[in-house]
C-alpha cells in the first residue's frame, strides 16, 4: 500500500470493510470505504438509520477493528494494533464526543476532563494537568463549576465538559457522534457553536449527525448509504 507521507493528512482509510457476524447472518455494515481527512477539516457524515455511520466512526476511533482494509493516522499504520496499543493511540490521537456525554458520575468536572491525561503514556505532572484542563475548559467556556459532579450540570453543560475532555490530549481528530441527540435545540446550538469555534482554531473534526442543519455547518459533507460513501469530494484532493 502506498504510504502517504503528506504531512497535511490526518486520517487515511483505504478499502475498509466491516462485517458483523451474528448467529444467523452476516451484516456488511461497511463495504470498501476510502476516506481521507486532512488536518483542519470539518467533516459531517449523514445518512439513513442503519447505514453504518456509527460503525465508521468507531473504526475511525479504533474502538473496533475493521474486517479488512488499511488505516493510517498521521502517517502511522493503525490497522493491526493490539488492544493496549489501540488504547494508547486513542489516548494521544483521538478525542471522542458521545451522544450521551459519557461523563463519569463519581468524578468531578475537573477530574473528568483530566482523565485522558492520567492514562497518557508520559503522565504529565499535577501542575501541567491543571493548566491544560483549565485551558480546555476555557475553550468551552466552562471554567466555573470545575468541582461539580456531572449530574449537577445541564445536558448542554455536560456535553461541553465532554468536548473539553476530548480536547485535553491535543488529538489529531475529534470524533463526534450525534452530539446534540440528547439536547434541546438551544443547548444543541451552543454545542455546535463550540465545535465550529474549535474548527476555526484548527481542530480537525469528524461528526456523525442526522440533523441536516448541523451537517451543513461542516465544510465537507459525506453521505453514507448501505455501508458505502455516496459523495467523497475530498478523495480527489487527496489522490
Amino acid at each position, binding site marked *: 500500500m502506498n504510504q502517504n507521507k503528506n504531512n497535511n493528512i490526518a486520517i487515511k482509510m483505504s478499502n475498509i470493510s466491516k462485517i458483523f457476524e451474528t448467529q444467523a447472518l452476516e451484516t456488511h455494515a461497511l463495504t470498501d470505504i476510502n476516506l481521507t481527512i486532512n488536518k483542519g477539516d470539518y467533516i459531517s457524515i449523514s445518512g439513513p438509520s442503519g447505514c453504518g455511520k456509527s460503525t465508521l466512526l468507531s473504526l475511525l476511533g479504533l474502538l473496533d477493528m475493521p474486517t479488512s482494509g488499511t488505516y493510517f493516522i498521521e502517517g502511522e499504520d493503525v490497522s493491526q494494533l493490539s*488492544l493496549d496499543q489501540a488504547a494508547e493511540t486513542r489516548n494521544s490521537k483521538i478525542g471522542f464526543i458521545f451522544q450521551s456525554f459519557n461523563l463519569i458520575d463519581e468524578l468531578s468536572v475537573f477530574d473528568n476532563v483530566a482523565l485522558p491525561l492520567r492514562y497518557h503514556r508520559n503522565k504529565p505532572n499535577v501542575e501541567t494537568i491543571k493548566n491544560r484542563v483549565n485551558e480546555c475548559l476555557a475553550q468551552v467556556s466552562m471554567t466555573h463549576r470545575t468541582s461539580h459532579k456531572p449530574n449537577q450540570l445541564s445536558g448542554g453543560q455536560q456535553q461541553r465538559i465532554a468536548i473539553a475532555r476530548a480536547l485535553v490530549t491535543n488529538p489529531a481528530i475529534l470524533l463526534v457522534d450525534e452530539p446534540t441527540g440528547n439536547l434541546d435545540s438551544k443547548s444543541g446550538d451552543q454545542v455546535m457553536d463550540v465545535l465550529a469555534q474549535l474548527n476555526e482554531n484548527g481542530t480537525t473534526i469528524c461528526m456523525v449527525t442526522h440533523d441536516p442543519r448541523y451537517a451543513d455547518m461542516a465544510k465537507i459533507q459525506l453521505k453514507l448509504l448501505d455501508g458505502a460513501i455516496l459523495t467523497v469530494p475530498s478523495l480527489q484532493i487527496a489522490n
Partner: protein
Amino acid sequence: MNLFFSSLSYSVKQAYKSLQQTPSFVFSVITTMSITLGALLCVLTLAYVMLFKPLPYPDAEHLVKVDHIMTKKDGSRTDPLFSYPSMMYLVNNQTLFSDIALSSYDKQILTSHTSQPTMLTTYVTPAWFELFQVPMELGRAFAKDVDIKNDVPEAVLSFDTWQQAFNNDENIIGKTVRFRDVSFKVIGVSAQSFIEPQLIKAGYKSQVWLTWDFNRTSARARKDWGSINENLIFVAKLDKNNSTAQAEQQLSPSVNAKWQEGVASDAFYDGWRVDIQVSQLKSAILSNHQQSVLLLLAGVFGLVLIACSNIANLFIARMAQLQKTLAISAAVGAKKSQLFKLLLAESSLLMFASLMIALIFASVGFVVLQQNLAQVFPRVDEVVLSTFTLSSAILFATMFTLFFALLGNKMINYRAISQHLHGSGKGVDMQISKKVRYSLIVSQVAIASVLVFGNLSLFTEALKVINEPVGVNTANFVDIDFSTKRRPTQEEIDGPVLGTAIKNSLLALPQVAAVSNSQSPLSGFYEMALTNVATNEHMLPGVKWIDESYFQLIEQPLLAGDYFTVSDIREGFTGPEGKIDNMVMIINDTLAKKVVPQGASLDYALGKKFKMDERGVFTVIGIVKGMKMPGVSNIPVRAYVPSSVHSISMTVKLKPNQTLSREQVITAVNEVTSLFALFSMKDVAEIHQQLLFSERATAITTGTLALLTILLAALGLYGILSYSTQMRRYEIGTRLALGAKRRDIVNLIVFDNLIAVIIGIIISIVILIGLMMAFNEQLESIINVSLLPLFLLTLLLISGIAFNACYLPLRTYINKPALYSLRGSE
C-alpha cells in the same frame, strides 16, 4: 378466596416465566441455597436428636443410668464404675426403681461357628428387653419375670448377626450357639428397627445378648468390693414420684455403708467413700459429645450467614436488572403490593426448588453421618428425615423466602422507577448503592475469613496428629490374640508350652517374616503401680509384657543398656509362679528422666530397682526411646517387662506384599492345639487408623466446612463484583475509549474494592481475637505460633478469591474492542 388463589397462580406463572429468562441467577441461588439448607438440616437434625429428642423407649424420661463413684482419701474421684458386689447389692436392696436392666459388655469367639467370628456379646438381665421394648424379628425376648440369678443359657441374636453369621436362617430358633464352652439356646432375633441404647460408648452395637448370670465376671471378682469393672452398666426406670437427686440421697448411704464393710479388711481403701449417681439416661448417653455438636452447629450457621449474604446480593442485582420491567409494570398501574407478590412468588419458587434438593443433600448427609461418624456422635442411627427435619426445613425456607422477597422489595427504588420512565437520560440505572455493595463485601470477607481460619486450624491440628510418627515401625504387622475355648486338660497343662508352639506354627507360615510373643506396639499398655525401691516413690506407668525380639522387630531405638534376652522370658504361667531371682525391666526415656537427677546421663537409671505389687522387684537393664500412641500428644512413663513363654498374644511381621487370612491362622493353630481359638486379628495399620478415628472425623468435617465456606464465599464475592462490574460497563467503556489500558481498568476495580476487603479482614481479626479471649481455656491447646502462617494463608486465599472475583468479570470487557463495552444495553 378463589380470587386470591387465581391471582396467586397468576403470580407464580409470571414468576416462573421471568425466572426462565435468567438461568444463571436461578442456578446460583439454587446451588447456594440447597447446599446450605442441606448442611443446615443435616446438622440441625443431628443436634436435635442428640440434645432434645426423647430416647426411643417407653417412659424414656424416667429412664436413668446409675453410677457408682468412689472418692479417694484425697478427694479425687475414680471413673464412675461399679464393682460387681456393689451392683448386685443395689439391685437387691432398693425400692426406687421399678425395672432394672443390667448389662455386662464382652467380646468373645462364637466357637460353634465354622469361621469362629469374634462377637460383641452383652449379658443382660431379664428386664433389659422389656425396658428398651426391643421389637423382635423372630422368636421371643428373655422372659421378664424370672429371677436375675436364672441359669438357663439363652441367646437373642441381633438382626445383623442373624443376617451375616446365620444367613437369615428361618429355623434359627431352638438351635444353639457356643461361646467358649457354654452353649446358649437361641430364643429370638431382634428386629432391624431396634435402636440399641449406646450405654457403653457411641456407635456400639451388640451382636448377641446372653443370659445375665453367665457373664464372665470371675467368682473372685463377684465378691471383691474393691475391684471395679468398666463393662458393667446399670440402667433403671425411676419411680415417677422420685427425682434423681432424691434417689441419690436415698441410695448412697446404704451402698456406701455396705461397701465400707466389704473393703474393711483392705487398708488401701481407708478414708474412701462411695456415692451413687443417678442421671437421666438421655444426658448420660449424650455425655461430653455436646460440645462437638454445638461446634458443628456454629460452623453451619456461619455457612448460612455467608449463603444469605450471597443470595441477598444476587437478589439485589436481579432487582436492578428488573428495573425496566418493574417500571413498565408500575406505569401500566401495578401497585406496590402486586410487585411484592411477584417477588414473593419468585422467591418462593426458588426456595421450594432449593428445599427439594436440600432434602436430598440432607438424606445423603445422614447416610454419611451414620457410616462415618457413628463413633463420634451418639444416636446417629436415629438421625433420619423426620418431622423435625421437615418442619425446620419448611420454617427456614419460609423465613428465607420472606427475607429475600422483602429485601428485593426494599431494593426497588420507586422514585428511580419513575425517573426511568420520564427518561431524563442521565443514566438513572438503579444501582446498588456503593454502601450496600461495600457492606456485602465486608461481611462476606469477614465471615469467610473467620470460618475458613477456624476450620483450617482445627483441620491442620487434626492432620498434624494424624501424621505424627509413632516412633516405631508398624508397617506389615498383624496383631493376633487367642483365647481359650475351654478349660485346659491336665495333659495340656503338663505338656509342651503352647505359647511357644503357636509361635512356631505361625513362623512356619510362608508369608510370615518374624513373630514376637508380645502384643503389638499399638495395642496399649496396662497401668501398674510401681515403687522406686530406693526412694519409695510411687508411679503409675503403662506396662507391657514383651519378648526378647520385640524392640528389634518394631525398631524402637535403645538409648542405654541392653535388650531382653531369651533367658529373661518367664517360664511360669503368671508372674510370681515363675519367680526368678533377678527379674529385669526396660523403661522408656520419660520414666528414666524421672529417676535420673538433672544433668546426669540416662545411664544413671540402669540398675535401679522397681517393685511391681506382688510380682516382685525388677532391675532396670535398658532404656528405650519412648513411642507415641496415635492421637495422643505426649509420651507417658512406660515400663516393659519380659512376657511368659505361655503368652498367647502375638505380633506377626509379614514379608513384603504378603497377606494373612483368619483361616490360615486358624488352620496353623489347630495343627498344634484345640485349646485356643483366634480371638482377634488386626493389621497394626488398621489399629493405627482406629486410634486416629476422632482426628479423622474432625479432619473430614472441618475440611468439608472449610471447602464449603470457600466455595460459598467465592460464589458470593464473584456475584457482588461481577454485578458491580456489569453496572459499570459504560464507565469502563468510556475509560477504554479515552485510552485506559487493560491494566488501568483492572487496577481501578481492584483498588476500588480493596478497602472493603481490608475492612473485612480487620473485622475478622477482631472477631478472632474476641473469640480467643472468650474461649481462652478451651482453645489453649490449639492456639500457638503455627497459627500465624495459617492465618496468612487464609488471608491469601480470601484475597486471591477477591482478586479473581474482581478480575474474571472484567475479562468480558477488557479483552474485546472497547466498542463492546460502550454499546447500548442489550
